[in-house]
């Protein structure tokens, strides 16, 4: 009986293990002291339970390498705060950039109690994410702090129900009615690149300062950033859809904040939703959610069954279908567009000749098919069916199907007798021909009469 149960348990576990990120399950956690992981045991346990194969290394470790023979050794990196100033020769900014370029995901967690490593600062600055000068800074908010743990220092921020900062996004990070605590957070400032998007921003009343140097007075010129310019959690998605997540507060992931009870000044106390939030952040960062897959692209002539022909003719009626799935934690589901968002198809040569909204045609088990029918432009050339769907939180879809659009062949024009304007000319030809034949006949059969005699 027990054995059967254990086999069943093993099967369930195996299923859980197989159900993990689309990008792989090899996760490397970089932290100062392997013993330190006990602080995060619950979070790391969650990751293991979700199927990650977690390895731990310290920056000082000799055997630490991100690549082996040109291949990535890990699929994901998690940086927990480290007291080491630089992260050593194996984790230089250029290694990290290469790791991202090779489709690896990185989650960086920081804390204001430990200065960030130069390697991380250098790496993030390549992504156009700036950290406070001197690598140290803490975010305080004199209006939204936790009265229980930071009654004096005001550096444990309480964020109520993180919600998306703009409409049209998937609610991956939204916890309605929830509360998330950001203890000892380091704020960062984002550049204006389109690959970056803030998820949790500090409230309007927050600001960042260096407790060591700016304890007494904070000159306005020396202010790193304040208010909503200060991000606490930001995500970056490279063009190859590799993800970099910057979390300002590593302590958010610690066991003690998973269950903590916090309260705002003059407000009620809540249990934090840090555990759920940490799951979502790590899930997104390691590509467990928000991953799109293009199953198939079909374009064809409307009246033909031949799929994806290489050449069309001008003014053909064509239909285009794209089938999309989304990975949601452990399975592929049909991709549903966020509210107020549309999926567009461009039919372009140098510039778009058509830009059309795709409609949802049908849904099969794990895929949604979006499509449209339209008439090709009256211009021959080499065109692209292009779906360029790039949204924050969702992996990029940039699909280009090149087709040639040819001119009318010489036998595809309407025949002359179909064109009413040609009738006078056709009858002219007819008249000439019959006239000539008639004339010849008359000429040949009208012998001169006089010669008979």
């Amino acid at each position, binding site marked *: 009986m027990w054995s059967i149960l254990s086999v069943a348990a093993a099967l369930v576990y195996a299923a859980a293990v197989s159900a993990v990120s689309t990008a792989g399950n090899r996760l490397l956690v970089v932290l100062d002291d392997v013993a330190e992981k006990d602080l995060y045991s619950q979070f790391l346990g969650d990751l293991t339970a979700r199927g990650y194969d977690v390895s731990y290394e310290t920056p000082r470790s000799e055997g630490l390498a991100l690549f082996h023979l040109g291949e990535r050794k890990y699929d994901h990196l998690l940086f927990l705060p480290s007291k080491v100033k630089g992260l050593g020769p194996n984790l230089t900014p250029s290694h990290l950039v290469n790791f991202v370029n090779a489709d690896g995901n990185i989650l960086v967690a920081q804390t204001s109690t430990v200065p960030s490593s130069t390697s991380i600062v250098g790496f993030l600055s390549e992504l156009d994410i700036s950290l406070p000068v001197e690598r140290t800074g803490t975010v305080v908010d004199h209006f939204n702090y936790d009265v229980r743990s930071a009654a004096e220092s005001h550096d444990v921020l309480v964020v109520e129900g993180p919600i998306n900062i703009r409409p049209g996004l998937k609610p991956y990070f939204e916890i309605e009615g929830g509360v998330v605590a950001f203890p000892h957070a380091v704020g960062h400032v984002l550049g204006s690149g389109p690959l970056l998007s803030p998820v949790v921003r500090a409230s309007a009343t927050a600001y960042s300062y260096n407790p060591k140097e700016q304890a007494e007075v904070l000159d306005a010129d020396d202010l790193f950033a304040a208010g909503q*310019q200060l991000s606490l959690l930001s995500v970056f998605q490279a063009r190859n859809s590799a993800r970099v997540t910057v979390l300002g507060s590593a302590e958010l992931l610690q066991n003690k904040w998973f269950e903590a009870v916090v309260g705002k000044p003059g407000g009620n106390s809540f249990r934090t939703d840090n555990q759920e939030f940490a799951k979502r952040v790590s899930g997104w960062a390691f590509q467990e959610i928000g991953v799109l897959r293009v199953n198939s692209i079909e374009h064809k002539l409307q009246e033909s069954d031949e799929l994806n022909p290489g050449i069309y003719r001008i003014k053909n009626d064509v239909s285009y279908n794209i089938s999309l799935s989304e990975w949601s934690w452990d399975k592929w589901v049909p991709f549903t567009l966020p509210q107020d968002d549309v999926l567009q198809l461009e039919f372009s*040569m140098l510039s778009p000749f058509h830009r059309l909204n795709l409609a949802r045609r049908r849904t099969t088990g794990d895929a949604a098919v979006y499509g449209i029918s339209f008439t090709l432009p009256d211009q021959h050339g080499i065109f692209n069916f292009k779906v360029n769907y790039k949204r924050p939180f969702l992996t990029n879809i940039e699909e280009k199907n090149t087709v040639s659009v040819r001119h009318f062949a010489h036998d595809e024009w309407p025949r002359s007798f179909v064109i009413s304007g040609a009738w006078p000319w056709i009858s002219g030809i007819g008249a000439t021909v019959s006239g000539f034949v008639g004339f010849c006949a008359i000429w040949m059969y009208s012998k001169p009469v006089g010669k008979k005699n």
Partner: protein
Amino acid sequence: MAVETSKGPALGYTTESTRALFRVVILCFIAAAAIASRLFSVIRFESIIHEFDPWFNFRATKYLVANGFHKFWDWFDDRTWHPLGRVTGGTLYPGLMVTSGAIYHALKTLTVPVDIRNICVLLAPACSGLTAFATYLLTNEMTTSPSAGLLAAIFMGIAPGYISRSVAGSYDNEAIAIFLLVFTFYLWIKALKLGSMLWGALCALFYGYMVASWGGYAFITCLLPVHALTLICMGRYSSRLYVSYTTWYALGTLASMQIPFVGFLPIKTSEHMPALGIFGFIQLIGFIEYVRSAISGRQFQTFLVTILVATFGLGLLGLVGLTSLGYIAPWSGRFYSLWDTGYAKIHIPIIASVSEHQPTAWPSYFFDLNFLVWLFPAGVYLCFQELRDEHVFVVVYALFGSYFSGVMVRLMLTLTPVVCVAAAMSASQILDTYLSWKSAVPAEEQEAPKKVKGGLRGVEKPNVGIYSPLTKVLVSGSILVYLLMFVSHCTWVTSNAYSSPSVVLASRMPDGSQHIIDDYREAYQWLRQNTKEDAKIMSWWDYGYQIGGMADRPTLVDNNTWNNTHIATVGKAMSSREEVSYEIMRQHEVDYVLVVFGGLLGYSGDDINKFLWMVRIAEGIWPDEVKERDFFTSQGEYRVDEGATDTMKNSLMYKMSYYNYGSLFPPGQAADRVRQVRVPDQGPVINTIEEAYTSENWIIRIYKVKDLDNIGRDHVSAAAFERGQKKKKPTKKRGARVLRLD
């Protein structure tokens, strides 16, 4: 051989049939000589398609053979002019490809499998044999001297002016077009002489074939009406002229309109208007002639004046009106440049940039025609001696041919046939006169009729001079020497100047042995084997056909210069800063950029030397963004060394040419052997593209266009990061903060 040919008839004791046999044998020899002298390139190098345009014709022929005629007719080529494509089937002259395709299929039916490439390579020499024969026929129409035709045939067979376009491998439209040109003229003369509808129809048929083969058909379209008009003005209107001209025009125009590329041009463009006008005019003349025979002289005079004034007035008004309304296209720019050689340079740089569109230099007449140059006027003079209708044709042809050959180098080709005909007439006249072995007194009666026909008036008088053996030996000896020199000159020119495939370069090693420089094919092969099937290659248009033919990769622009804007776009990409070029290249989906650089080898036909044309053509479209002046130093020099202007140094072309060039040399010694200057040691830095391939002698350099940076940086900072340069710390807050708006 030419001398031998002239002896046969002059000896005078062979019977008619023996002469005919001789003639056939000699013509066969001439054809063999014409073909053999064109095979230098195959022997020196290999059976390879030459230069630029032939590569397109070759590619088109392969398409025709592979896909059949209907597909070829409707061919939309999506591998050129990316991303516009080209309606190739409707924008080419299919005669050449169809001819080789027909030969290929005929041989296949005869179970002689021949590679289509070899047919293409050898088509031009084969046609040159036919051209020699056609010239023989044409010349025979001009003179009764039987030696003139044979002389003309051999002249035509080996004249460098024609060989330049018809060596083996020079698979160009001209290869068959010159044969068709000469043969059409022969048929025209025949039709005119006989007033025959049949010959007129044959003439129209071959005219149609000519239209299908070469854009130069306009030469026939204009020359025949001019000939007809000249005859009419000389008061030589006849029913023969009427029949032959109207037959040719009606059938020929219908035939020409069957070619899609020509279509309705014969009734729409000014180039074709003379033929149409003369067609109308000749109807009028015919009508007037009829009226003249019907009514009295006085009435006729009034009638004539009224009719002429009314017709010309109405015709001219109609032409001007239709042209201004846009129904008739005005003269095209290419046509203007025929009248004013400076026109193209100012208005259409794309035409002026082609070397074969340059005005001819005087020495090239001697180079291409040798002693025919001075025999030619003599022959034209001889035409005036008799001045029958066909002689008028030679005179008209000589006049126009000489003019046009002076305007454009390539039109030397259309001049060559008439030069050969006229020169053969004068040479045969000399030989006939001086090679006669008959003594003066008894021969008086026999010689006399011959001289009336074609003799120089000066020698007609009973003169002991030309009968004395000394004169005969001297004159015929010197002509013999000239003929021999002509043969050796032709052989020398053919072997040294016109037999280089230009795809493969030959040079001499210090020990005198030949060294083949094969960079072009090396690079094209690299492209073929190392890039994706649909990788788009950007290069200057000169190399478009070769990339399409040899590397089989899509190109942005090619030698079919139908879209000036697209070419100017490439010119702009080459002559702008990297950042500007990158946008253009991204928009056009360019994967690789190819440049030709001759600095290491001293190969002067490279892109830096052509660069100013790119600038000029780009400036024609974007005068605000590309300025030719910026590429010259303040002293007005075009420099590529230290003193080059910043615009020059920052241009993509300069960067691609000289990237890493200094590293080949010891410090301070980097030199460009074409421009004979020392180039800076510190070469240009490129960020948006990366070197992918450089051929052995650095003639071809290929660069890959980088993708956008994966993490969203601009290429300059990404490249700086790659090189290990630290990002500059953001300068201590000066000015307003840059805020992110979300």
